């Protein structure tokens, strides 16, 4: 089974989000980068499917030259080929053009399955996978937390839970599936994996070549500026230290009517 997994380089955000001076980007001068958690699981799921059915995993990313780092991280955990659709540093590509760029890679190969994360953790556009499926003319399912392949590898049962109901979509391959964290527990890279990833080639295509002019000119949502919402500054009441705080804690639970 040949599988394409689409991943995105996003900042590692821990304590707080800070913006650049022009308020048009997240300040990443002090942060590292990673791929979205959903995508980490997409890569792992793809590797597991090829371990069962044979075939190989290709990873693709639309991003700046430095996104090579994220592609190599995927190579270290079992992907065997990587494609970087290169954008100029500091530019942001909208979901319509992103899907068109990924389509160029997806249509060039013979992929039975294209896996993505359900949404990128930074921009959260919730649409690239579905736009890509339409460009490919393939069925799609999103928000998937469990994938079960039929024994012949010709169909996939894709499952999630929504409003207390388990929903299962049965997709004939080829198909596009956007998964969520929790579908699996991604493996750590092995030492041989890391060594292999360091030497593996990463092919590069300029985004301007991958994105057809019509898609590049299509209207996108145009960001004017970013803003960190004001977190309500809470006055924290310290109830005490250790078990000595318990009477105050019990009184509080009663006051909040959590206990009778």
């Amino acid at each position: 089974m040949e599988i394409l997994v689409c991943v995105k380089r996003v900042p590692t955000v821990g304590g707080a989000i800070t913006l650049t001076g022009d308020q048009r980007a997240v300040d990443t001068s002090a942060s590292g980068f990673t791929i979205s958690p959903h995508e980490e699981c997409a890569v792992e799921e793809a590797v597991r499917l090829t371990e069962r059915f044979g075939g190989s995993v290709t990873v693709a990313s639309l991003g700046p030259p430095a996104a090579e780092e994220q592609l190599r991280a995927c190579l270290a955990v079992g992907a065997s080929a990587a494609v970087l659709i290169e954008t100029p540093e500091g530019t942001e590509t909208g979901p319509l053009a992103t899907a068109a760029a990924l389509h160029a890679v997806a249509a060039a190969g013979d992929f039975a399955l294209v896996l993505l994360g359900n949404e990128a953790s930074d921009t959260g556009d919730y649409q690239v996978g579905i736009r890509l499926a339409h460009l490919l003319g393939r069925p799609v399912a999103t928000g998937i937390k469990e994938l079960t392949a039929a024994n012949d590898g010709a169909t996939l049962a894709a499952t999630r839970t929504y409003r207390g109901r388990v929903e299962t979509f049965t997709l004939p391959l080829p198909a596009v599936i956007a998964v969520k964290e929790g579908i699996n527990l991604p493996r750590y890279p092995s030492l041989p994996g890391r060594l292999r990833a360091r030497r593996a080639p990463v092919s590069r295509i300029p985004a301007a070549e991958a994105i057809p002019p019509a898609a590049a000119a299509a209207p996108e949502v145009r960001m004017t500026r970013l803003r960190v919402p004001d977190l309500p500054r809470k006055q924290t009441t310290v109830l005490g230290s250790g078990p000595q705080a318990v009477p105050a804690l019990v009184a509080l639970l009663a006051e909040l009517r959590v206990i009778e």
Partner: protein
Amino acid sequence: MTVCCLVELDGGAVTDASLRALTFARGLAVDGSGLMAVLFGEDDPGAAAAAELTAFGVTRWLGVTENGGYAPLAQARVLARAAGGAEPASILLAAATEHGAEVMAHVAAITGLPLAANCTAVAPGAAGEWQVTRQRWAGLLLEEAVISGPTALLTVAPEAAEAVALESVRQSAGTGELLADIPADEPGLVVRADQRPAGAGGGSLASARVVVGGGRGVGGAGGFAPLEELAGLLGGVVGVSRVVTSEGWRPHSMQVGQTGTKITPDLYLACGISGAIQHFAGCSGARHIIAVNTDPGAPMMTRADYAVVGDLHQVLPALISALRDRAAGQPSSVQR
């Protein structure tokens, strides 16, 4: 021009998320052109929900009989047609639920229009444009943006509006129709969901009144007994931070946060959780937060309403014993 809203039903009633979206949409349909709802379900879903739709300001609805289960692409085709045509809707929107998000993404792909996901505010801009505020990073960051086109496609974040019915119901009820001509499924492309009830525990984290949270401070897969016992005493459930699920101590279905579940309990009791911002993306909807942590400077402690400095493995057993004594009508045995 009409504002058109996808309305989701649960057991024939409009979901809270869709009532919020309708309330939000009503605020955009102020030029008298009307608020249209499109609903999918068994038999005649519009007729069943007519009173609710009218109470929320819907002037016209289109009911669609859904045969063979939920299919996002099939819903999107109906929506694209209902909102398009010679006089397109100015705005087509849905609640930013899993269903709303994917149906709207299909509409965007069908029409080639931009889609702004998780909007919290929308206002008219220049001609043919709307100014939107939308969430990035699950709401930890906001984006001010402009969306243009014959129809603005949006999903609406739950934070955008509370569900509020009209103060005085209009003289005339809304009018509705049942769609007669439903586009046929393209085999192999339109996939329909097989839906069955989830087993016990499904979705209980999202709706729990009390959540007892555990993080790295729990120490390992074997350390959750006091959290589970406390959750039982308080009529709540246990939730966990991302580190707990990525270490495999507990399943991902218990995760609170950006990539897990968003919770809205009356009380969130966060134990041994340092509080990465991705965690706040999941728990900031809690009415009250109590944090228990050995580090008084941890973000979870400084952003909580109440804090207890200490090891959860000492504090929780003492709390459990005090709650048991209290329930048995005995004075607290905790040493002051």
